[in-house]
């Protein structure tokens, strides 16, 4: 029977365990929080500050001027680059999601555990190699004397001007993002309760309808997060628009590098960087809101 003394000792013991648990949780959480503070928030704050500095004789000078913001935001080339970069990143996210889905579905449902592990290994291997080298290798494929045009030549077709076009830039973006999107989609689909899918089939759903009305909504969060990653990677990429797109037209990342190359204009480069960060944060918040928001409405 619980006596008052025993209740007191149990409460004290409980408080002690609670304090120990809190201390343990804090020790686990504090390092990443400190890391984020030191290597993300502080540099971000510095980046914002630099947008108000000036450059005199190629030298960066602490200052407080709005000229960098007005110069960049009113420049036609900035607006063009912004729209182009956003459109290409959005298209990459959509294409990556669509192209990845059949592969992810196969890996999650149609292959055994051993084969799945091997396929995951194959998807991870590209990350061990140099991304610029992989993009340069696409030049061998798409150049006027490259593999694609040689194959077209055998069929008396072409040659086609493939390099320095937005479509080949997207191929570069997919090279970067697709393995990651497939992996994230695979994990998302594999976590879906299979009994839901079986129940749908028992109730007369065709396999395709089961995928569209049951599987995809159930894996919604992971699928949207995967698309968000593809957007973020494509939006900020520098290598593909430079080496495959020929900076024609330049994306925001190329424009940012141009500001620094052409006269040490770090403040103007910082303005472009801050705009990119704000855009990505907004898009991520919206996408995560869509991903988790519907779930909360269903459970409330």
């Amino acid at each position, binding site marked *: 029977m619980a006596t008052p003394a025993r209740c007191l000792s149990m409460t004290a013991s409980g408080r002690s365990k609670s304090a120990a648990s809190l201390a343990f949780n804090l020790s686990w959480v504090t390092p990443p929080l400190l890391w984020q503070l030191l290597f993300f928030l502080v540099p971000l704050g510095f980046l914002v500050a630099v947008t108000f500095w000036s450059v005199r004789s190629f030298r*960066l000078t602490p200052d407080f001027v709005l000229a960098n913001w007005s110069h960049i935001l009113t420049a036609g080339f900035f607006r*063009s680059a912004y729209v182009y970069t956003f459109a290409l990143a959005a298209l990459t996210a959509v294409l990556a999601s669509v192209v990845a889905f059949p592969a992810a579905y196969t890996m999650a449902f149609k292959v055994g555990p051993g084969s799945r592990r091997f396929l995951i290994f194959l998807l991870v291997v590209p990350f061990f190699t140099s991304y610029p080298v992989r993009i340069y290798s696409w030049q061998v494929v798409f150049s006027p004397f490259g593999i694609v045009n040689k194959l077209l030549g055998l069929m008396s077709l072409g040659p086609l001007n493939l390099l*320095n076009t937005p479509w080949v830039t997207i191929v570069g973006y997919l090279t970067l993002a697709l393995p990651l999107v497939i992996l994230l989609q695979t994990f998302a689909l594999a976590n879906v309760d299979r009994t839901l899918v079986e129940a749908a089939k028992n109730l007369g759903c065709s396999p395709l309808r089961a995928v569209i009305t049951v599987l995809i909504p159930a894996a919604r969060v*992971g699928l949207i997060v995967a698309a968000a990653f593809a957007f973020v990677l494509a939006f900020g990429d520098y290598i593909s628009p*430079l080496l495959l797109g020929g900076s024609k037209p*330049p994306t925001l990342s190329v424009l940012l590098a141009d500001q620094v*190359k*052409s*006269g040490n204009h770090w403040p103007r480069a910082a303005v472009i960087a801050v705009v990119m960060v704000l855009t990505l944060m907004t898009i991520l918040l919206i996408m995560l809101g869509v991903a988790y928001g519907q779930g909360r409405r269903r459970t409330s």
Partner: protein
Amino acid sequence: MNDNWRPNGDFRALLSRPNRRQLIRGTGAVAGAAALSGVMPAPSWAEGETLNLLSWPGHGDAAVVKPFEDKYHVKVVAKEYVGGEAMLALINQSPPGSYDVVLADAEYVGMLRDGGFIEQLNPADYPFGDFWPEFQKFEGHWLDGKLYSVITRFGYLGLAYRTDMLSDDDVKSYKILWDPKVKGKVGFFDWYLPSMGCLSLYSGNKPPFDITDAAFAKLKQTLFSLKPESAGFYPMAAVFSSLTNGTTAVIPGVGDWVALLLAKNGVPVSATVPAEGGLQWTESLSICSSSPKKDLAKAFIQYMASPEGQVRTGRLPAYWASIPSKAGWQKMNAEFPADAKTLRHTFSERNVMDEYKEGKIFIRKTPVKQSIETWNEAWTEFKSL
């Protein structure tokens, strides 16, 4: 997937919660790695002095600097830039003492001097007597009668083109850039100065960089009219690859520095100075004012100006160039006669000095009546069209 995952479609189910033992083991592993890194031996090249060189790509190559490194038991470490403005930016923002020697193009030497970044040099320390007369007191390196930089390489800029797509007659004028046969195949080296300089010559501006605002407005129109012809805008390495893979048929504002190396490797590329004229670029070495190793820096410049250094730098693996030392020409003809012929550095045939004397070559400079920023903005606008 394993049975422990909650099948709720939430990827956060992947994250397993570590226990205290795993946390302590992980922390110990990180701490051990950090401690071990302190007892690893330093790399062998760090044992002697280091000469820090700020230069265009490739100038720290062992093919050029190894004899110097062996003689002085030092390591030459190059910090690379592409574009004069990038060089100025680097030297402005680096702490004093970061660089011992800077390789700059002639038009930037004055700015380096005015910024207090380079030392005055004693001409008697360097073998100017070995140089062709035209380069013994080259404009841009001597300021107010004092020497600040020793010329080591030069070249001409006009058009580089694929010989299987264009004939020698085709490229006699910059007009070829608007020809339908190169539509979509005109590449651009992504630096405003040489590209716009050549187009300025085409527009009839002589000299090409000292032009009125009205002439600059016309130059902008000429530049913008090339957008439908453009293939792309390339950093230095991609200039080579775009000509090699056939993406571009012709590139204005570049020259032998691109064509010779590709031609040597069997790519059908050549370079020419069209009738409207071309630009001359030069590279020269200066001692940085804040260098703590000025004697070593001087020895490096002496080496690069010597016949040995001149032959090696003329045949730099990254990109070839003409050399100003007549003694270097003699050594190259003796040891590498085929390369001397390719570089047009022979004494018995038409050579680069004959081309210089014809008066079609204009020294490349930074804009005079407009700011660098104005020309650069025009270039950025052009890219964004």
